[in-house]
């Protein structure tokens, strides 16, 4: 959970170096060196205000790529935007975005994950950080980078070292039990999107039950219901991101 979680309007975002705790050396410690305590190990990224990075995770087929496409449509004109995809085995998600022309090719990077999308977004985020760094190097300052995870399970969440905020996308077709089941994605994501509400009658999913369970699991954290076939601009999600970017101010 973000330290500033309760106050998303906080403006300045804490950097790892601010959490640096000076420490004493024990007698049995071998001689060693420390990184400069004032230097963030991710210095290349954190120098000056940088793009807001939003992770988009969730189970396979819940609509993550469709949401990214919708956000590109909604925000592409007003924000300097780029996307990193993490596919299980292909560049399928990146190709989908390209085919649909929501973003020019140079604004999309596909990261290969070696069968393990959750590793690439949580345990070893290096390839994603490199992709973001490369996008910023080639495109100049950005306002927003969307990082889509490959479809994974309910426990797959993004590392805070990679993203600033995360959205977890589930769909009603998976059954109205999903919010009740919880898991880190559902309980801790900064925004929970329950997608494909248009299908609810077809699969007999009760949206009221999902709403109630989500509130129970998530407390104050927001949840939105969405049908990307009906709302092709993902209006509530785009609005949520607009506010975050606005609070943050323009990137250098």
């Amino acid at each position, binding site marked *: 959970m973000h330290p500033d979680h309760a106050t998303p309007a906080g403006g300045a975002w804490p950097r790892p170096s601010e959490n640096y705790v000076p420490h004493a050396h024990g007698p049995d410690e071998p001689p*060693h060196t420390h*990184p400069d305590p004032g230097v963030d190990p991710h210095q290349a990224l954190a120098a000056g205000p940088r793009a807001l990075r939003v992770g988009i995770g969730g189970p396979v087929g819940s609509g993550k790529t469709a949401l990214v496409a919708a956000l590109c449509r909604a925000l592409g004109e007003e924000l300097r935007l780029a996307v990193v995809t993490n596919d299980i085995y*292909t560049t399928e998600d990146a190709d989908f975005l390209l085919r649909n022309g929501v973003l020019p090719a140079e604004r999309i990077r596909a*990261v290969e994950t*070696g069968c*393990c999308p959750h590793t690439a977004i949580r345990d070893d985020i*290096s*390839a994603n950080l490199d992709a973001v760094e490369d996008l910023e190097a080639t495109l100049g300052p950005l306002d927003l980078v969307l990082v889509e995870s490959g479809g994974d399970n309910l426990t797959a969440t993004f590392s805070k070292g990679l993203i600033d905020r995360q959205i977890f996308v589930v769909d009603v077709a998976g059954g109205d039990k999903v919010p009740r089941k919880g898991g880190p994605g559902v309980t801790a994501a900064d925004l929970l999107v329950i997608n494909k509400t248009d299908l609810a009658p077809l699969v007999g999913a009760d949206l009221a039950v999902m709403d109630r369970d989500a509130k129970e699991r998530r407390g104050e954290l927001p949840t939105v219901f969405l049908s990307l076939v009906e709302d092709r601009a993902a209006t509530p999600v785009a609005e949520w991101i607009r506010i975050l970017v606005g609070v943050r101010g323009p990137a250098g």
Partner: protein
Amino acid sequence: MSLATLLVLADGRLPAGGHAHSGGLEAQVSAGRVRDLDDVAAFLRGKLATSGLVAAAFAAAACRRPGRWAELDGGLDARTPSPALRKASRAQGRALLRAGRAMWALPPIGREPHQPTALGVLAHAAGLGPEEAAVAAAHGTTTGAASAAVRLLALDPYAVHALLARLAPACDRIAGEAARHADDAVNDLPAAGAPLLDIGAEHHATWEVRLFAS
């Protein structure tokens, strides 16, 4: 020298990008040349004796004299004819530097050096010596491909680890040989090539659907 520090550097969980690479195994699995545990064993032995030896020697040399990193990087370029393998090596070198910078104060080194060069420089910064850098490199060439083998061929993970244990003496031997070259001129460092790794990497890079980055 701290043994625990060596374990930190050689740990497969070090967030240095390795999980996305199969060390050339995916291409050979797909070509039907690696199907079972015995094939994986032969693959790993061959890889260890070729690119493993080269990686270990360059890691040892970079550890001995980190200031030589650019020259060593050029030597690895000349030993890595496959652009796909150069790219994979540099991507992993860059990822390793990112992890290394968080752990130790690194001397100057380029933005995207080859993985063995980066490993040697990290080992130096961590207070380790060329032997340790070499053994971490040799070990790394086997473990990455071995864990990919578990995923690609659904092999019994215990059997694969038993294989890694059997390979440990070979790793030590290769690392020892590599470390003896730590002071050699770059042209005299080992250059054992592996034609199927080169060809496989190039072929792999043309696929539309693949599980691993290399």
